[in-house]
């Protein structure tokens, strides 16, 4: 199962390694981790995506809550949150294919941020699904470099607890 943890922590030195340490000690791979300031300067939000068994994922959340510097842990299921990720990708695009690549980029709302004779570098953001589809779409041209931020996330305000998306 895939779990998104949204963790509010005190903005103290060493907190990130402490939080990450809880995962590594149990042998879990963190799929992505993103940390950044919140509306309150003393608090940082860390968003972690990890895979695991459900009860193990719950146990990690409990352990996280025990840490002195952790103020809040939310386990968010994918449907109950706004999630976004930023991607930078350099696509192989010789002049002959350049307009095709740019057209495709436009379809995804991606920005062109650099261009050379044979590459185009794009900036795109979106939820998990969109980012995956986008990368798939460019795969055929060849992606020579890529950087992803990892997912950041906020729970939807006012979402009823038993809300389920229509399949």
């Amino acid at each position: 199962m895939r779990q998104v943890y949204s963790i509010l922590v005190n903005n103290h030195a060493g907190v990130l390694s402490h939080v990450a340490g809880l995962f590594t000690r149990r042998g879990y791979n963190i799929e992505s981790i993103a940390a950044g300031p919140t509306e309150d300067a003393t608090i940082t939000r860390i968003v972690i995506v990890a895979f695991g068994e459900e009860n193990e994922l719950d146990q990690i959340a409990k352990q996280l809550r025990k840490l002195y510097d952790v103020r809040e842990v939310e386990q968010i299921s994918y449907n109950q949150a706004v999630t976004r990720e930023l991607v930078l990708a350099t696509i192989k695009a010789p002049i002959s294919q350049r307009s095709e690549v740019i057209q495709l980029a436009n379809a995804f709302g991606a920005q062109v941020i650099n261009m050379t004779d044979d590459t185009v570098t794009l900036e795109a953001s979106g939820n998990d699904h969109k980012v995956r589809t986008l990368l798939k779409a460019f795969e055929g041209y060849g992606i020579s470099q890529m950087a992803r931020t990892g997912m950041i996330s906020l729970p939807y305000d006012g979402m009823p607890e038993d809300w389920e998306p229509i399949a």
Partner: protein
Amino acid sequence: MAVATKAKSQTTKQPAKLKPKKISGAEIIYRSLEREGVKYVFGHPGAILLTLLDLFLERSKIKHLLIRHEQCAAHMAEGYARASGTVGVCLTTSGPGATNLITGITDAYMDSIPIVCLTGQVATTMVGNDAFQEADIVGMTRTITKHSYLVQSTDDLAETIQEAFYIARTGRPGPVLVDLPKDVLLGDGLYQIPEKVDLRGYKPTTKGHPRQIQRVAEAIKESKQPLLYVGGGAIHSEAHKEILKLAETAEIPVTYTLLGAGAFPSAHELSLGMLGMHGTAYANYATMECDLLIAVGARFDDRVTGKVSEFATRAKIIHIDIDPTAIGKNKAADIPVVGDARQVLAEVNKLVKPQKRALWKKRFQNLRAEYPLSFDSPEGAPIKPQEAIVALSEEVGDKAVITTEVGQHQMWAAQFYNFTFPRQFISSGGLGTMGFGFPAAIGAALARPDKLAIDIAGDGSFQMVMQEIATAVQYDIPVKVFLLNNATLGMVRQWQDLFMDRRFSEVDFDSSPDYVKLAEAFGASGRRIVDKEEIRPAIQEMINTPGPYILDVIVDPDELVFPMVPAGGATKDMIVRDSRKKVLQGKLSALPDN
């Protein structure tokens, strides 16, 4: 406008405010410790601590003891905490002084013991530069403390120490480390603390949820064969009276873990003694037969459950614990209750009505009669360690607080000593640290001057920490070492005996010290015994000789600890008795119909 005038009139009424006075970091620490009610500090010095150590010369509220090795300082703080229920304190210098604490801190973490460790550190400007005697002790201890602080400014000292004590003793107790850079100690700062500690991310739940408490009471009422399973948390929360009341009111037998020993009188008719790998056969069989298991401050440790999927399979599980992460970690709970064991059980007791369970009572009494703890002691044979412990228990009984090292002797102590009050038995459970018992006994002796502190020791363990006899002699601490000397690492030898075809590799001591001369060399006293007849007179001599004393009891190295559930095995695979004498393996008389 109105607000402003009000504020103004208030300030004019007050006398001119004195500017708060700055005091030295050392002074702030001393006052903070005084404020926390600290009586003893177990320490070992270093240059960084000079200004703080200087304060111990002329003041007498807090006594600093000079411990010979920092690991033992931590164990003494633990022993003090375990015996008194208050926070133990140790103080060491930076670098090696701090790293030497690590085993003791881990031990305290595993067994949820409240200690505060103060460590010196190089100046804040040098931290991270590999300065002389710098060690990143905060980083190293992150996973073995409830929290580790690096104090950045003298002004933060008082509040940090207040928080450290608060965190150590509240919730599930545990160790807290405060790292003190040299400039923070030497500098001047304000002694400023909030009236009440309020930590946003840290709010332990102590009161059980009323709905869950209701469910607990109902489950007890419906159960035919309930069993109380009591762990160290019951001791920390002082839940023993509530446990006794619940057990007697609803006629529920009680079994305890190594750390729970003392929470329920061993000789009570409802007591089944210790459970687990070396628990009594009747306690372990009762876990297989019970239909309701009430875990109180226990964590379903693998030494207790064996193969967890086959543990207490017939039972509904109630799990009462102050630490939500302990619940459901190893075994799913049907009725989880997060809260302080004493408070939760007090609420449960309000709802539980007297109940009789004649059938169940008869059943566990039969199990107890059928599979008693036993050992053979043929005439002319060497002293059996078990009989030495039985004699000790009968001679000193509730006059003593007992600590142990780790090994066979520890298990025999838990099996054969008759415990009557909480905090009477002090042992390293979670970490299983050889060398724990002797320093812990020194700490316990200081915490309980009204009792006799006795370390039931193994010779291997004692050799790890015997330098502390010097500490006991220097401060005239009347700690007694009841040394069950088998000239071997008995517990490891036992595994080689049972699982390695008796190939005894690297366990026997071909050379051991003369423990009587050793005691004398340090200025203590001692005696060696080899005959059964000498046991009781020697125990009397040990009790009546003032000061530290080593009683070197030469025991049979071939004796094995039974019952034994092989590691990873299920309770039903328990070996009840020594196979070289009489096999009684997994031969369980028919289980009764419910």
